[in-house]
C-alpha cells in the first residue's frame, strides 16, 4: 500500500473504495459477544461451505464487529438480498449455502421472530429492536471489517480528517465541536468543546490526548463494541482532536480484559500509520501525530482520569485532587485532554455533517445520540443507540422488548455500579444528564441493568457495594472505609442480622462518603445505597423488622418447605437435592430437613407438582 501524501490521494482511495458492487456477500458479526455464542465457528463453517460449492471467488465473506443485537447472536446477513438469519449454528451452514446463497430462498426457521406478533422478519432493519434507534455510530459496525482500513475508506472514512486539516483552523474545529453541544460520553458529561478549548489555551508546548477505553462497569460494553467494530472512527476522532488541541502524541488506555479490542485497535493504528494517516506530516498538513496503546491492568478506578494518567505514567492507579485539571497539568504535568471512546467516535460525524446536524437530535442540554448496553432481565439484550431525551420506558419496552417471561419490571440501574436504581414510577424520565441526576442516578458511561420482580434491592445494593469496596483504590478514608462499612451493614441486613438504626446510619454514612471522597468513584459510590433506600425502603425494613426477603433472594431469610397436600411422593426432589436434605417414603409426602438445606432451590425447579414452597 502507498502512503497517502495529500488530501487528493485520500479522496482517490475513498472514491475507489466507495463503489457499490453487487457481488454477493455474507456478513457475519463476530464481536466478543458473538464469539461467545460461536460466531467464529459459524464463520469458519461458512468459509468451508463456500469452498465446497466453489463459491470462494464469487461470494465475499465479511467479518464485522457486533451490530448491537446480542440476544440473537450469532447472526449473519446475506447481501445483496439483505436476508438476516439469527441464532445460526455451524451446522446450519450446510443448508444456508445451497438454499439461500445459491437458491436465493429464505430459510424460515432461521429468521427473526417478532416477540409480539410472532411473525417472521426477513430484513435486519425491520426488526422492532432497531426501529426506534438512531444509529449514527453503531450502524457502521455492520458495514465494515474492522481489520481492514480499506473498508473504512469505503464509508467515507478519514474524509472528516481531511476536511479538518485542509479547510479548518484548530480554533474552527473547536468551535464546531462546541456548537454541536456534545458532552463527554464517559459519564460526567462535561462539554467536550470547552474541554478542548481549555487544553488548547493551556500554557505549554507539549500536549497530549488520551482515549479512555478503560471500560469497567459491570454489564456495560458500549466502548468494546466500538473498539471491536469500528476502531478507525475512534482514531479519526483522536487525530482531529489532536489537531484542534495542538497535541502530537496520543494514548489509547484500554483494559487488557478486552483482548480482541486490544488487537483490533492495535492493528488499526498500524494500518493508519502505513497509510500515513498517523505519523509525520499527515496529508501534507505539517501536522504530526501518533498514538500509543497502554493496556490497563484491570483496576476499575483507572477509568477516573487522574488515576488513568497516573497509571500511564507508571505509577499506582490513584486519583488526585483536581485542580489542577488535566487540561492544565495532566500526563507528565503537561496539558492533557482525555475523552471517552464514544466521544471520540462522534467527532468525525460532527466535522463531516456539521454541528447543526448533530445538535438537531437530543434535548436542550444533552445533544446527539448515546449508546447504552441494555442488559439484565430484558428480552432484547444488546447495544442500542438512541437519541438523547428518549424515555426509559421507550428504551426498555419498545426497544428492549420488555421483561422476559411476563414478569413485572422493578427497577433499572443506569450508569454502572455507582449509578442509582430507578423504580417504575420514574420510567417516563427522559434520558439526559440532568434528568437522570434528578432521580438519583447518573448517565454514567451507558450501562443499563434492568431488574424484574424477582430481584431483591437490598441484595443489589450489597452486590454493588462489594464491587466498589474491592475497586476503591483505598486512598481516601471516606471511600475505602465508607464502602467497606456500608457493605458490612447491608450484608448484615441481607443475612437477617440487621438492627434498628441501621438504615439511619447507612444514610448518614452514605451522605458523608458522597460528600467527602476525592474522586468520582467515591462521590458516586453511595448512589446504589441512597437510591434503593429512597425508593425501596420498605424492602430494607422488611429485612430488618420482619426478617423477610420479599423477593425471595437473600438465602438466610428464606425457607423451602414441601406442601404435603400437593406432594405426590415421586421422589424427584429427593434425588435432585445435593445435600440429601429431603426424605420421605414413596408415594407419601416428603419433608425437607432445614438443618441440612442450603437453599439452592433445585427442589423447587425439579418439582412438577408445585409442591415446594419458598417463603
Amino acid at each position, binding site marked *: 500500500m502507498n502512503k497517502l501524501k495529500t488530501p487528493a490521494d485520500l479522496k482517490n482511495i475513498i472514491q475507489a473504495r466507495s463503489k457499490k458492487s453487487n457481488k454477493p456477500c455474507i456478513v457475519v458479526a463476530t464481536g466478543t459477544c458473538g464469539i461467545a455464542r460461536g460466531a467464529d465457528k459459524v464463520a469458519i463453517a461458512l468459509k468451508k461451505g463456500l469452498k465446497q460449492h466453489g463459491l470462494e471467488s464469487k461470494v465475499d465473506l465479511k467479518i464485522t464487529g457486533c451490530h448491537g443485537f446480542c440476544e440473537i447472536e450469532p447472526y449473519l446477513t446475506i447481501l445483496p438480498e439483505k436476508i438476516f438469519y439469527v441464532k445460526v449454528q455451524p451446522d446450519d451452514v450446510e443448508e444456508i449455502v445451497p438454499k439461500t446463497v445459491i437458491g436465493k430462498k429464505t430459510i424460515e426457521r432461521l429468521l427473526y421472530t417478532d416477540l409480539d406478533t410472532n411473525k417472521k422478519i426477513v430484513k435486519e432493519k425491520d426488526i422492532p429492536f432497531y426501529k426506534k434507534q438512531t444509529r449514527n455510530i453503531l450502524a457502521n459496525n455492520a458495514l465494515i471489517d474492522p481489520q481492514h482500513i480499506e473498508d473504512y475508506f469505503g464509508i467515507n472514512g478519514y474524509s472528516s480528517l481531511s476536511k479538518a486539516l485542509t479547510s479548518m483552523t484548530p480554533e474552527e474545529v473547536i468551535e464546531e465541536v462546541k456548537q454541536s453541544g456534545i458532552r463527554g460520553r464517559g459519564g460526567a458529561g462535561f462539554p467536550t468543546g470547552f474541554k478542548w478549548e481549555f487544553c488548547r489555551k493551556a500554557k505549554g508546548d507539549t500536549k497530549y490526548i488520551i482515549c479512555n477505553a478503560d471500560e469497567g462497569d459491570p454489564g456495560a460494553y458500549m466502548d468494546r463494541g466500538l473498539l471491536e467494530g469500528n476502531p478507525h472512527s475512534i482514531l479519526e476522532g483522536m487525530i482531529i482532536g489532536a489537531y484542534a488541541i495542538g497535541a502530537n502524541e496520543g494514548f489509547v488506555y484500554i483494559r487488557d480484559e478486552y483482548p480482541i479490542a486490544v488487537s483490533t485497535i492495535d492493528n488499526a493504528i498500524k494500518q493508519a500509520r502505513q497509510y500515513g494517516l498517523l505519523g509525520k506530516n499527515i496529508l501534507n498538513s505539517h501536522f504530526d501525530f501518533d498514538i500509543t496503546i497502554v493496556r490497563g491492568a484491570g483496576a476499575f478506578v483507572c477509568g477516573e482520569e487522574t488515576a488513568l494518567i497516573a497509571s500511564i505514567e507508571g505509577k*499506582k492507579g490513584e486519583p488526585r485532587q483536581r*485542580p489542577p485539571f488535566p487540561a492544565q497539568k495532566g500526563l507528565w504535568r503537561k496539558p492533557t485532554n482525555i475523552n471517552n471512546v464514544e466521544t471520540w467516535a462522534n467527532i468525525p460525524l460532527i466535522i463531516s455533517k456539521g454541528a447543526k446536524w448533530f445538535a438537531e437530535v437530543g434535548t436542550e442540554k444533552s445533544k446527539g445520540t448515546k449508546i447504552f448496553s441494555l442488559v439484565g432481565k430484558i428480552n432484547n439484550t444488546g447495544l442500542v443507540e438512541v437519541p438523547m431525551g428518549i424515555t426509559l420506558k421507550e428504551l426498555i419496552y419498545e426497544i428492549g422488548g420488555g421483561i422476559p417471561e411476563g414478569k413485572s419490571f422493578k427497577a433499572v440501574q443506569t450508569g454502572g455500579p455507582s449509578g442509582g436504581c430507578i423504580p417504575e414510577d420514574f420510567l417516563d424520565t427522559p434520558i439526559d444528564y440532568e434528568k437522570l441526576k434528578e432521580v438519583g442516578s447518573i448517565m454514567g458511561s451507558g450501562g443499563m441493568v434492568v431488574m424484574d420482580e424477582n430481584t431483591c434491592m437490598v441484595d443489589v445494593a450489597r452486590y454493588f457495594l462489594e464491587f466498589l469496596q*474491592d475497586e476503591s483504590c*483505598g486512598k481516601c*478514608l*471516606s471511600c*475505602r472505609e465508607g464502602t467497606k*462499612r456500608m457493605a458490612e451493614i447491608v450484608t448484615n441486613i441481607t443475612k437477617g442480622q440487621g438492627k434498628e438504626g441501621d438504615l439511619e*446510619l447507612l444514610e448518614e*454514612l452514605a451522605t458523608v462518603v458522597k460528600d467527602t471522597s476525592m474522586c468520582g468513584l467515591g462521590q458516586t459510590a453511595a448512589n446504589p445505597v441512597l437510591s434503593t433506600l429512597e425508593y425501596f425502603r420498605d424492602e430494607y425494613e422488611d429485612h430488618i423488622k420482619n426478617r423477610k426477603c420479599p423477593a425471595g433472594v437473600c438465602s438466610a431469610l428464606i425457607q423451602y418447605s414441601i406442601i404435603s397436600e400437593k406432594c405426590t411422593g415421586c421422589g424427584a426432589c429427593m434425588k435432585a437435592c445435593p445435600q440429601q436434605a429431603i426424605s420421605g417414603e414413596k408415594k407419601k409426602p416428603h419433608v425437607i430437613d432445614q438443618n441440612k438445606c442450603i437453599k439452592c432451590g433445585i427442589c423447587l425447579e425439579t418439582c412438577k407438582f408445585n409442591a415446594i414452597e419458598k417463603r
Partner: protein
Amino acid sequence: MIELRIDGIDVQVEEGSSILDAARFYGIEIPTLCHHDGLTDYGACRLCIVEIGEGDNAKLVSSCTYPAEQGLTVRTHSKRVVQARKMLVELLLAMCPSSKTVQDLASAMDVQKVRFKVEHNDCILCGLCVRMCAEQMGAQAIDFVNRGKDRKITTPFDIKSDVCRTCGACMYICPACQLRCQGPEPPGDVCGSCLNVEPVCLEDEDDKMCFLETCGWCYKELGRTKSKEEKRRKID
C-alpha cells in the same frame, strides 16, 4: 497575592498556597491527620475538608490539596463540614481505637460513640510513613500495596527491604502505632476522657480562647442543645 474569604474573613495569601496554608496563616484551625508540614500533601484522611462555593455548587474538598484560588469562599466549620468530619473520625476510631491521635481527634470533635464493628488495626493508612521514607529519608523502602479494603503498607514482597536503613522515621511519624492512648477508661472504643474537662480558656483565660489551640468547643456546640445565647452568656 491571592484574595479569598475564609469563614467570613477576607484574607490574602501567596500564590501556590493551599486553603489549609491560608487558613492556618490566619489562625483558623483545621484538623488534619495525614498532613505534615515537611511532606507533600496527599489528601487521604479527608479530615481537613472544607466547604467551598455557594448554593448548589457548594462542595467539600480537602483543604490540604486544594489551591487557594482568587475569589474563593471557604467555610471551615459549616454544619456540613462538621458532621462529615465527625463521621470520618468515627470511621477512624472503628479502625484503630488504640491510637491516641485518633482518640484526641474524637474528643476534640465530641465523637462519643462508634456505631461500626470495631477492628483493632495497627495502621490507619494515612501514608505519612510512606512519604516520610520517600521524601525525607530518600529510601522508598515502603509503599501501599493492594487496593480497596485490602490496602496495606509494606515493603516490596513483604520481605526485609534492602534499602531500609532501619532509621525509624516511619515509626516516629506514625500517628497510630506509636502513641497508645493512656486515657482513664479501660481499653475500649472511645476514651473520651478529654471531653470531661471543661475548656479552661473559657473559665480562667477568657482572652486566649481557642485561637491558640483547638478546644473543640465549636464541635460540641453542634451536638448539644445549648443555645448560642447561653454560650455567649457563659463567655461574658
